[in-house]
């Protein structure tokens, strides 16, 4: 069953623009110019129950706007959304009982109070009986290993500790669907790893559907099974992580180091980086056979070292992000898919 269905969802904002020229400030007061910004343009996608989906896009692509429409905070300008069978724009309060959200750059915990106080308040907001609140808090405190933090004022917690408490707090009412908007932003490597493991475990053991936005490719590769990429407000890629990674497999990075200087230029393939004894090549396997390239390089002289790497997923996504328009990004996706 689908947990989220977005059908041609769109959102336009009206911005006041200051007119140009003389007395622009004054004229702007009386006859402001307005510009319509189409933040989300007809986004259609669905997420099944129990899935962990990455919702990606460059800054300003419309990710947060989409999440806010899916949680009922923003009213769509067009299209429809269904979240857990409810229309978020009409049933925001009913929907709030079944969804949880963590906005990495905002906090739901009281800054000067220990997390225990925020947990108690959230328990009251979600109308949890004291016994149920105690058992849920206990389980989450154990799972997130935050027992020692519960009586420390939030302002004294590290960012990683705070995010662990934030996610635990958002799970107190046992939501079926969790929206995570950049939950690992600003975290160090260890804290990121901990948060990823917790999200993964949450999905596997409790079957919580996770809708995650992040700029961290590590989060996405480790946790998500599917990626939806939004660009200029349009969904340009919606495919499994496996398929997305497969795009990267078409391009390999090959590094060689010789014992003595040799001619390292191959017919139709020049090094992208070279020194007197080493070189690095970007090999499009649709144009060159990897085996043939390796053979040709080995024939040039005595090889001391050879490395073959996949193209980082980050590069694939960066190329999609770098497209000037949604249509162009879609074309890129199709072109890459044809190569596959």
């Amino acid at each position, binding site marked *: 069953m689908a947990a989220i269905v977005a059908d041609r969802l769109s959102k336009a904002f009206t911005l006041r623009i200051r007119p140009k020229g003389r007395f622009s400030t004054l004229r702007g007061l009386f006859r402001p110019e307005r510009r319509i910004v189409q933040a989300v343009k007809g986004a259609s996608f669905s997420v099944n129950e129990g899935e962990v989906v990455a919702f990606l896009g460059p800054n300003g692509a419309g990710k947060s*706007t989409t999440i806010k429409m899916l949680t009922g*905070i923003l*009213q769509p300008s067009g299209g429809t959304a269904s979240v857990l069978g409810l229309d978020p724009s009409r049933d925001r309060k*009913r929907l*709030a009982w079944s969804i949880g959200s963590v906005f990495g750059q905002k906090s739901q915990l009281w800054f000067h109070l220990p997390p225990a*106080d925020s947990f108690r308040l959230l328990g*009251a*907001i979600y*109308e949890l009986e004291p016994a149920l609140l105690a058992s849920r808090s206990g389980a989450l405190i154990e799972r997130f290993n935050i027992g020692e933090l519960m009586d420390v004022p939030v302002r004294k917690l590290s960012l990683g500790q705070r995010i662990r408490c934030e996610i635990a707090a958002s799970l107190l009412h046992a939501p079926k669907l969790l929206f995570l908007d950049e939950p690992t932003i600003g975290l160090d490597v260890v804290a990121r790893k901990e948060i990823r493991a917790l999200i993964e475990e949450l999905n596997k053991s409790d079957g919580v559907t996770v809708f995650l936005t992040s700029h961290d490719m590590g989060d996405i590769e480790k946790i998500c099974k599917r990626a939806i990429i939004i660009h200029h407000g349009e969904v340009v890629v919606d495919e499994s992580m496996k398929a997305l990674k497969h795009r990267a497999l078409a391009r390999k990075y090959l590094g060689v180091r010789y014992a003595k200087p040799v001619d390292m230029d191959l017919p139709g393939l020049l090094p992208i980086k070279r020194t007197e004894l080493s070189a690095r090549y970007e090999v499009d396997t649709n144009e060159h056979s990897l085996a043939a390239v390796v053979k040709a390089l080995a024939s040039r002289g005595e090889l001391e070292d050879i490395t073959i790497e996949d193209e980082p997923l980050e590069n694939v996504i960066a190329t999609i992000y770098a497209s000037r328009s949604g249509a162009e990004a879609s074309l890129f996706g199709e072109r890459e898919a044809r190569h596959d």
Partner: protein
Amino acid sequence: MTKLGARLCCYGVAASTAIRDRTAYAGNFSASMLTYGLFVFIFSRVWSGAYESQSTIAGYTRSMVVWYFIIAEITSFGFGRYFWNLARDVKSGQVAYLLARPYDFVGYHYAERVGGSFVDAAIILAEGLAIGLLLAGPLPAAVEGGSLMAGFGRAGLLALSLVLAGSLNFYLQFALALTAFWLEENDALYWIFQKFALIVGTLIPIEFLPEQAARAALWTPFPYLSYAPARIFVAFSWAEAGSLLARQAIWVVLAMLLARFVFALGSRRVALNGG
């Protein structure tokens, strides 16, 4: 637990959490206590000058008018600063968290924010009573005499009037703050509101205003923010207190309806673009 019981419990926990937050640092109160004390001192000196050549002005003695100011300022210092926090939450996008909850938004925020203010109001009231005894002498006598009944009645109705004033202040500031859903900059609206509140009943009793202005002022909500509790305190009579409380209650209901209307309208027009 019934639905109503759960809701009341939620409001109670919200208020107690806000109180814990306010009392997390004793230093939270020092700035407002200092400013309040300074204001009361300065105005008691100003009134001393004004009363040099006369013993009463519009029925108020010097002692009454100093006590009036002490009580009138409690609404500003004790129940005053809702606008800034609410408007900041809307402008910063923090409202995203606040909206994504299954509670009655207006009711919850009333409980949380007014509940948290009780500590501020109680501290300012205690400070005011102490300073008043030093600067203005004993409490002004009740119009109905110094019976025990009148004494308790005055204290009880003053407390009720202060709660109603705090509630009215909250709902009006809530409605103003939520204009941030439409306006990028709405501080000016609060500035105007604040100035009206100050002139109409806080700095001076409305009896000091020209007759026409005083009569017109009674049709606005401003006297019920500070004039009503202060008047109940300095010139207590059951009849006048009853009338002032009834009018305060009506204004609280009207302001609550306005706040709910602005929220219903604004929350459907939320425009939070960007993360």
